[in-house]
């Protein structure tokens, strides 16, 4: 493999890995803040114990998100220096703003929250978890705005003298539809996976009879969150696909393996036949659905891969403008399928636990354990889809992926970093999952005492330390 392929593998592995932790951070931060608010308002011990318990899971997860995030910022320059030179004038700004507005906020106030139980007035301590959660959300917004520029460049002009894209409107970059709909979709999916995590963990503890008084309300919180989030994921995904059809028609056509332009286009649930769907043997299709998704009308016309290819050859010169069709086709389906399963589970579980019932089925416990993984897989598939189906572009219409790689870095160097980071990440995954499992098995803590009367000179034993 050459340096380009290795750099792409590294980016794929490190980014998908990083984004296993990010959506949990995005949703769970707010859920923990909500639980603490419930405790603050009602003073009920169950809510405090729930806050501490899910707060611990949040922190185990957050640490991984932070350290793998540093790699993300560095590797643009390390592996993709030509890309960085080409878009730095535009792409760097949201990254720097993300650091200044979001990273400082989340890290500082999370530190306050972890260590502040005994030292801050209750109200300020509560505010600190909210501020940390808002910080994570801001961070998502700025980095998604940067990514959206790669999907659909706006607010720039190409300067032939410097040979780079230059910013003309930061407002356009930060407020374009691609960015706002992607942000909406990402936040909803963050709540989807976090809701499923809270629900799954609570259901499992409930079945074991561990801290029933704590986990019954959190089960409901998790399930309702999952259900509402799955509806929002659906709505935002629909908005995104409309935007995608206008901006990146090839991506939508690839998602559907739609080779020819058609009206009343049907949506394929799955296909058995050639991998890219060009010669189907068995398939299930929903009539008109693709046209509705793409245009909002059943009779709308959806462009096919071959026609778009012909247009792009005229526009950008000879060459292939098709992504790998089977990858686009299947990641798109798996994204939707895995996401939807979480919603279905939420419906079932809400029914099974109605009016204080405890489900007896073994299947319920089993489902509770794996269900949080489903939206996580769905999210990974979604990222693989949106990034891989943009290929051959790194910045749509402006720069091809192979032109973005660092010329000064040898394939040996990239291989070293790919191997080192992958091995390190694998070890950390084992450690992290082990810790989460331990924390979940232990369940919510008993007898939590919070002092908020810390006077200067008070040398009391800390309730929490590293």
């Amino acid at each position, binding site marked *: 493999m050459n340096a380009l392929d290795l750099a792409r593998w590294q980016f794929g592995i490190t980014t998908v890995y990083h984004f296993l932790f990010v959506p949990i951070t995005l949703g769970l931060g707010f859920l923990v803040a909500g639980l603490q608010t419930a405790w603050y308002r009602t003073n009920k011990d169950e809510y405090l114990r729930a806050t501490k318990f899910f707060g611990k899971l949040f922190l*185990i997860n*957050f*640490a991984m998100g*932070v*350290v793998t995030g*540093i790699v993300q*910022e*560095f590797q643009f320059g*390390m592996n993709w*220096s*030509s890309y*960085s030179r080409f*878009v*730095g*004038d535009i*792409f*760097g*700004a949201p*990254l*720097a*703003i*993300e*650091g*200044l*507005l979001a*990273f*400082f906020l989340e*890290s*500082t*106030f999370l*530190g*306050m929250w*972890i*260590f*502040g139980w005994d030292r*801050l007035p209750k109200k300020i301590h509560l505010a600190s978890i909210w501020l940390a959660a808002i910080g994570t959300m801001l961070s998502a917004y700025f980095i998604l705005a940067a990514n959206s520029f790669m999907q659909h460049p706006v607010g720039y002009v190409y300067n032939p003298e410097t*040979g*780079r894209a*230059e*910013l003309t409107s*930061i407002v356009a970059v930060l407020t374009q539809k691609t960015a706002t709909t992607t942000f909406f979709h990402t936040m909803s999916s963050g709540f989807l996976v976090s809701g499923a995590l809270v629900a799954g963990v609570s259901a499992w503890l409930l079945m074991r009879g561990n801290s029933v008084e704590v986990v019954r309300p959190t089960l409901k919180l998790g399930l309702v969150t999952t259900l509402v989030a799955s509806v929002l994921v659906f709505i935002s995904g629909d908005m995104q696909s409309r935007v995608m059809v206008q901006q990146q028609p090839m991506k939508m056509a690839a998602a559907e393996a739609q080779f020819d332009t058609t009206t009343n286009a049907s949506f394929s649930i799955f296909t058995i036949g050639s991998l890219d769907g060009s010669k189907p043997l068995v398939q299930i299709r929903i009539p008109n659905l693709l046209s509705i998704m793409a245009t909002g009308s059943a009779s709308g016309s959806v462009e096919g891969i071959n026609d778009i290819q012909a247009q792009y050859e005229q526009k950008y010169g000879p060459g292939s403008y098709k992504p790998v069709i089977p990858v686009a086709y299947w990641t798109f389906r798996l994204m939707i399928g895995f996401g939807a399963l979480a919603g279905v589970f939420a419906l079932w579980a809400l029914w099974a636990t109605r009016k204080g019932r405890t489900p007896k089925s073994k299947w319920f416990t089993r489902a509770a354990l794996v269900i949080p993984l489903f939206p996580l897989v769905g999210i990974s598939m979604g990222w693989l889809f949106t990034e891989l189906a943009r290929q051959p572009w790194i910045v749509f219409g402006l720069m091809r992926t192979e032109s973005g790689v660092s*010329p*000064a*870095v040898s394939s040996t*160097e990239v291989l070293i*970093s790919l191997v*080192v*980071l992958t091995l390190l990440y694998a070890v950390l995954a084992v450690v992290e999952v082990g*810790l989460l499992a*331990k*924390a979940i098995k*232990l369940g919510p803590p008993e007898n939590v005492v919070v002092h908020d009367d810390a006077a*200067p000179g008070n*040398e009391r*034993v*800390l*309730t*929490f*330390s*590293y």
Partner: protein
Amino acid sequence: MSHETLQLIWFVLIAVLWIGYFVLEGFDFGVGMLLRIVGKNEAERRAIITTLGPLWDGNEVWLLVAGGATFAAFPEWYATLFSGFYLPLLLILVALIIRGVAFEYRSKHGNATWRGRWDWAIAIGSFLPALLWGVAFANIVRGVPLAKSSAGHIEYVGGFFNLLNPYALLGGVVTLTLFLTHGAIFLSLKTDGVIRERAHALVGKIGLVAAVAAVAFLLWTQLAYSEKAWTWIPILLAAAAWLSGLAADRAGRDGWAFVFSSITMGLAVISLFGVLYPNVMPNIDRALVGLDIHNASSTEYTLKVMTIVAVIFTPIVLVYQTWTYWIFRKRMTAEQIPSPESGTLGLPESAKETAG
């Protein structure tokens, strides 16, 4: 404001971000390296890590913002530097990853082997960046082999071993010893009892080594690489501040010692950026093409946008980050550390045997 002024402003702002980073994560690194030396038992080590607990992550953000600001304001510098210093940066990344995880995960399990491993992760994860940031900065000031590529970009062409020259290695020793001392001073300020005594005893010893290394390094810098007379000023002030810090430490004035060692970090960064200006990444052969604040920078519009954002938000960040330091200002002792059971997930070892 003209494009030239904005370029100067961003050169200064990036220097400011590195000052913040060296002052703050500098003591983090020092404390991390001293963890196993100053902390002799479990409770002491936990007390030491807890002094950093609420602060380290916020301190590290200074690096992320410095990186992001370099990307935004001087994309050519960011691209050439990060792709050029590839392997050292990879080492720094690995170090920062294991170190960050170690802080959060170490005390989540009662097992001694588990904790011992994370202690090493903290020590090594602090040692490597403390050394390598000095090596990296010294190389930037000294200049590196650069050449124009066929695409017209200025790329690093020096390879890995070129970065390990005597001047750069001395730079590494300087940041390493400065951070070690800075960390020992921080521990004297933030702990009490035996931890404080041991840390305090180390300050004078390491501080003198650091003083010799730093003076040699800064003199070498000024004589070999500076074309300006005024850079003598921050260099001499840095030396004076460092000696004042050591003197304050001897007098038992921990607070002043910390203020002076922080000022030294700041003046050291000012000296290096002062020598560097207006270059950001000069060629080792000054007659050949290099990167400066003009040919490496973003457009006037981008710099303007970034300036507005920085002017509004930097003061807010400074206020709340300072406030955190104020909240957690109390000294920490091993006696304040809760018994191993609380805050951990695993059973303590004694209980493990019976529980099976």
